[in-house]
């Protein structure tokens, strides 16, 4: 978001960066959708299409050495945090050159070199991992913070309560980011959760804000304010972002449970494009960006396809380390 005192040029550059990242995540996931349907991507994939502004907005307020813990719906988090496209696609296509050497897949994409501590197959697990990462940042006096992303369904997990308490008690530098898409798998989230996060945060003494999760600028702005305080040692904060899940819970989900008249959230890309239009950036510029991103994505897929498949034997060396002697 435009920092205070930033000049108009900085603001425009920031908006363009947001748009490019949003589009990158969108295009990657649209391609995954097809690759999955065509049988090139095995396993389960959970797409974040429609929710990209949360990843991009929060990440724009982080530095490279801040850490994040993600969820089963983690592609956007990974890419916005800086995971290279090639390693990302190679992982989903089960290649040896994948970020996890083809051993983890969609639900486990991780890149420690950019502070991405992993997508996660276990709902709620990222909460405690981010809390521990925040502890490390604090003890090392690194000035970094940790971010935990989680869905509105995950609010039912006991870990939220344990981590909220510990983080508040120890004044840990952590930002909790709830991606409230209204669904917990096949059930509406409001049929699963009896409390609201504003009250919850108050009970734990945690600073709380709510943002329109489809508006990248609104997310970035709220994240920036909260993160400023978190970095200053004021303890944990929570950002609740409302959004909507455009696709099924996973690809292949027939979604029979979903009401026909469900209102879909605004398209984060259109919202971002409108900001750019206000700054005088027109269609033509956007289609240039789009063409460049398409080319990058296709190049990454081509490289992944050409890479050697995941290797079985190498896995044994990574079960645990045996002493060199």
């Amino acid at each position: 978001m435009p920092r205070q005192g930033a000049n108009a040029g900085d603001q425009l550059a920031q908006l363009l960066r947001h748009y490019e990242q949003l589009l990158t995540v969108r295009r990657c996931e649209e391609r995954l959708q097809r690759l999955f349907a065509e049988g090139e991507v095995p396993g389960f994939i959970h797409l974040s299409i429609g929710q990209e502004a949360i990843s991009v907005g929060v990440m724009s307020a982080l530095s490279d050495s801040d850490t994040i813990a993600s969820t089963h719906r983690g592609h956007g988090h990974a890419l916005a945090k800086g995971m290279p496209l090639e390693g990302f696609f190679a992982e989903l296509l089960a290649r040896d050159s994948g970020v996890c050497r083809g051993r983890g897949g969609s639900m486990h994409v991780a890149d420690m070199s950019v502070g991405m501590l992993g997508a996660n197959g276990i709902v709620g697990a990222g909460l405690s991992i981010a809390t521990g990462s925040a502890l490390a940042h604090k003890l090392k006096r690194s000035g970094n913070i940790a971010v935990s992303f989680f869905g509105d369904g995950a609010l039912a997990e006991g870990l939220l309560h344990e981590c909220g308490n510990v983080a508040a008690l120890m004044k840990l530098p952590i930002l909790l980011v709830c991606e409230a898409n209204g669904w917990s798998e096949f059930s509406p989230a409001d049929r699963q959760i009896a409390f609201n996060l504003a009250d919850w945060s108050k009970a734990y003494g945690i600073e709380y804000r709510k943002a329109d999760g489809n508006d990248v600028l609104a997310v970035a702005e709220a994240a920036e304010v909260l993160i400023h305080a978190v970095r200053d040692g004021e303890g944990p904060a929570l950002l609740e972002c409302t959004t909507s899940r455009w696709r099924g819970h996973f690809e292949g989900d027939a979604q029979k449970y979903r009401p026909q008249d469900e209102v879909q959230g605004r398209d984060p890309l259109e919202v971002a494009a409108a900001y750019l239009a206000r700054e005088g950036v027109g269609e033509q510029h956007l289609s240039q960006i789009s063409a460049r991103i398409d080319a990058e994505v296709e190049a990454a897929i081509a490289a992944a396809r050409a890479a050697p498949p995941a290797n079985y034997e190498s896995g044994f060396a990574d079960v645990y380390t045996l002493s060199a002697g």
Partner: protein
Amino acid sequence: MADLRYGAAISQALTDAMAEDPSVIVMGEDIGGAGGSFGITRGLLDKFGPERVIDTPISEAAIAGMAVGAAMSGLKPVLEIMFMDFVTLTMDALVNQAAKARFMFGGQGSVPMVLRTPHGGGLSAGPQHSQCLEAWFAHVPGLKVVCPSGPANAYGLLRSAIADPDPVVFIEHKGLYAKKGPVPDVLTVIPLGQAATLRQGDRVTVVSYGAAVALALAAAGQMADEGVSVEVIDLQTIQPWDETVVLASLAKTGHLVIVHEAVEAFGVGAEITARMADIGFAHLSGPIIRVGAPFMPVPFAAELEARYRPSVERVVTAIRKTLGKE
């Protein structure tokens, strides 16, 4: 004989148990309206209503503990945990509470609950959605552990598990849900703790359970073509396991192979091996061979996972090895 899918047999067992006994309830994540992630509880909500078919939030520790408390207070809860990997979140309720209640409370604490959960790979679901963790539970005094291999025993064993006065971990296999198999015209209850001899033979005994039983049978068929007669035993219940049937078979064949999808090290096969090496030592005419997963998490890549999981070829190799025919 009719044909039924494994998943349908489990659904039928739940339906029949709920119809017969009003204290039976089912609970779990997305099991009501959505019918369960693998469709096993589909239709139960319409038949039995939301008081007995309970959709819960994503709160495994709470719902497992609730099953224990409800079981101590007159209900017979059947809890579904969507993937066996998520049982890690239910461990206190199972291991420290349910398993110990009867003993610790001087025989008063009956906990008639069932935790149903699917284990196993084959879906490229990766390290956190493919594990076979049955050995953990078999190691805990107080828990019973069941793992059916096909529709007929899935039905029969689940009925027994639900009727049982103690906590039962009932382990299904994701890869079997859609598989059809023969069932008797009248579905029958199968007591816990009894193995089934699925194929008679006199040269080698192969003991297995769950989805791996099909591998044992296929390997036995292949060996028969080579003139080697293999006996196949389906354990059905892992804890308590049927030592008598396994020992009797070993006495006949002198050779033992154990096959399961779970990691070999410190597993169910290790226990059977140790026990037979002790009480069956005099009968052994070759090494006891285990076929299981290597000491590695379940990999995501399809080719890696295929290599990782036990196969008919590996069972055949093990049979040859115990016979000294390599």
